[in-house]
């Protein structure tokens, strides 16, 4: 691959860090505005926020300012240090996820050889933060929510990884850039015009990945850890102000990151048909393509979220262990057979 700019290591790192700090809050802002505010409102015959800024675009910034003004409250019985750390741990897992997400041939913070592995490992860090929050709040609802989150995220980590395995086998690499390349250079029955987005060959894996991601993100059919009507907010019931904002940002930042993972692994990533894989222009166009694909995936995540009721904890576990994991295993076996045969 060619290098766009040759910079000393520290300058490059500085630029990347600054970009990450800007990009990650922006991504959750985009998702919240587009889907949580506007799409949900339209699905419910409302307008959503429309007074703050043009079409209500500044609403979330107003909300963030509101959260920042609020008092930082600790429950009297709370384990203070853990209570304070929990949102940071959750947000850290989100930040670490962004490290490997590619948006162009060179537009990636760190091109790790084991990118997929790293992403899966880092994304499950957030469960630690949620458990910490649930435990340290000294609140029964929070504790129940934290325990539910732990059980659920562990159950869904497995199908998530197993679903990704199919892609990895087909692409023969754990590197996310490599997966994009494999899709770009792939051919469907000898026709290579649009490459070979793995959603075509790995549709089952894509479905399992999306369902598991939904659970991983605690979005609605699987939102028992939050469960407003049962646990009144679950693990973050005691959080106010800035710390709640961190949880909120992490939720949507992770949703964005998972949509990005899905679009990299299944939808062809930043590659545009007709360009060379290491064309420099893709560093500029790639992020746009990625954004469009991410929004498409996120649309489905949130569409499901606004439509479905939530499952019960035991039903969710049954679904994970009895349906998703066998299916994912079958998918791996099938992929392996096809890989050997063809």
């Amino acid at each position, binding site marked *: 691959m060619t290098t766009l700019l040759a910079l000393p290591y520290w300058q490059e790192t500085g630029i990347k860090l600054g970009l990450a700090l800007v990009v990650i809050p922006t991504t959750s802002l985009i998702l919240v505005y587009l889907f949580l505010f506007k799409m*949900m409102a339209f*699905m*419910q*015959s*409302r307008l959503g926020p429309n007074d703050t800024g043009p079409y209500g675009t500044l609403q979330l910034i107003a909300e963030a300012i509101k959260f920042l003004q609020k008092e930082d409250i600790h429950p009297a019985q709370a384990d203070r240090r853990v209570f304070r750390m929990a949102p940071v741990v959750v947000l850290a897992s989100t930040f670490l996820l962004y490290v490997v997400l590619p948006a162009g041939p060179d537009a990636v913070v760190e091109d790790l050889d084991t990118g997929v592995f790293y992403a899966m490992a880092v994304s499950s860090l957030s469960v630690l933060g949620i458990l910490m929050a649930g435990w340290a709040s000294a609140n*029964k*609802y929070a504790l*129940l929510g934290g325990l539910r989150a732990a059980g659920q995220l562990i159950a869904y980590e497995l199908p998530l990884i197993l679903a990704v395995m199919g892609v990895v086998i087909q692409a023969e690499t754990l590197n996310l850039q490599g997966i994009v390349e494999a899709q770009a250079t792939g051919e469907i029955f000898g026709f290579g015009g649009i490459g070979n987005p793995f959603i075509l060959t790995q549709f089952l894996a894509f479905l399992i990945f999306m369902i598991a991601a939904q659970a991983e993100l605690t979005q*609605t*059919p699987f*939102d*028992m850890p939050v*469960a*407003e*009507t*049962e*646990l*009144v907010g679950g693990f973050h019931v005691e959080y106010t102000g800035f710390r709640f904002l961190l949880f909120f940002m992490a939720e949507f930042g992770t949703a964005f990151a998972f949509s990005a993972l899905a679009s990299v692994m299944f939808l062809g990533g930043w590659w545009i048909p007709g360009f060379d894989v290491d064309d420099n222009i893709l560093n500029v166009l790639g992020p746009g393509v990625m954004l469009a694909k991410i929004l498409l995936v996120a649309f489905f995540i949130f569409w499901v*979220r*606004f*439509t*479905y*009721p*939530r*499952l*019960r*904890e*035991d*039903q969710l576990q049954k679904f994970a262990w009895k349906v998703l994991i066998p299916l994912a295993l079958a998918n791996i076996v099938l992929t392996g057979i096809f890989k050997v045969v063809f």
Partner: protein
Amino acid sequence: MTATSDREQMAYVSSQAADARVNVELDTGDMTLNIGPQHPATHGTLRLACRLDGEQVVVAEPIMGYMHRGYEKLCEVRTYPQCTTLINRIDWLGSFANEVPFILAAERLMEVEAPPRAQWIRTILFELSRVANLALFLGDMGVQIGALTPVFFAFRDRERVLNQIEEVTGGRFHPNFDRIGGLKDDIPKGWVEETRSVMVKMRTFCDEMEDLLVGNEIFQARCRGVGVIPPEVALGYGLSGANLRASGVDWDLRRDANPGLAWDQVDWRVWTHPDGDSFARYWVRLQETREATHIVDQLLDGIPSGPIMAKVPRIIKVPAGEAYLSTENPLGEMGYYIVSKGDLGPFRVKIRTPSFNNISIVPWVMKGVYVPDVITILGSLYFILGDIDR
């Protein structure tokens, strides 16, 4: 069968409670979770003291009275027309339906009969308030289970019904439209046509709910087989309304004990469901909402002409006597027992509200269920706090 099984049930519940107490002393990990008084699922201030073993409920006990407003006592120091103002606020979602049994009981004491036109309009408004009330349930049940959208649909479409009620009575929530001997006013011009179109919209709302929730596999997984109430237990606890009909008991006061309203003039049926679980309760209410829109449609066609007020004195004094009258309200049987000593106001009013009895089954039905099921059952029993505590 009923009595003994109930006694066994209570013995079981209290033994479980004792067990739970012992467990706490030994610190084996039972946990008391207070659901409410401030909890979104109790829509109001009901408190459920639950003993949990993990996520399983050992004992759940409803504690009510956080919203007691003393309406029975307040009615004693008010005249009959003033009482309806208070009675409006018992079941605040179906206010008009609350007034009717009270007024009918007072009319029975006075031996006055409202003219047929008034009875028809009463029935129409009664059914409209049933639609408004149950429509909110249909959406609210979705929110209890975690679906965000149905409740917004419910509020959107209930608004149309409330507008129709407001156009006649002047009040969206508290119509205060019934008078002893008839109604306050007649219906305005053009109202019949508007109501008909609103009823069409309510039927599409019911279809939407059917697609969004009833047909949804997740909803079914959450509701089927959860909180099963067998018919004999339901009767034993004095459940009424859709909760009873969902247990397979064919019992509807509109048909069985019509106090003179126009229900016997139209063609409709009582829906029952044999299962007795949360899904059955939802399904029965959905069908009832549809049926109510059909009843309204038929009633709108045949409103008789005539006066809307019978001859009653300007200052109402109800002769001494006692009367009990109940009707099939959106939530179940609502009855008023009026004792009159011949004064301007009642000497004593006993209000039999459906939610109070419906919620009393909670300790029986919530044994060994999971915490999410507590919410499902509470949602499907459908109570209104003002109706429990009045």
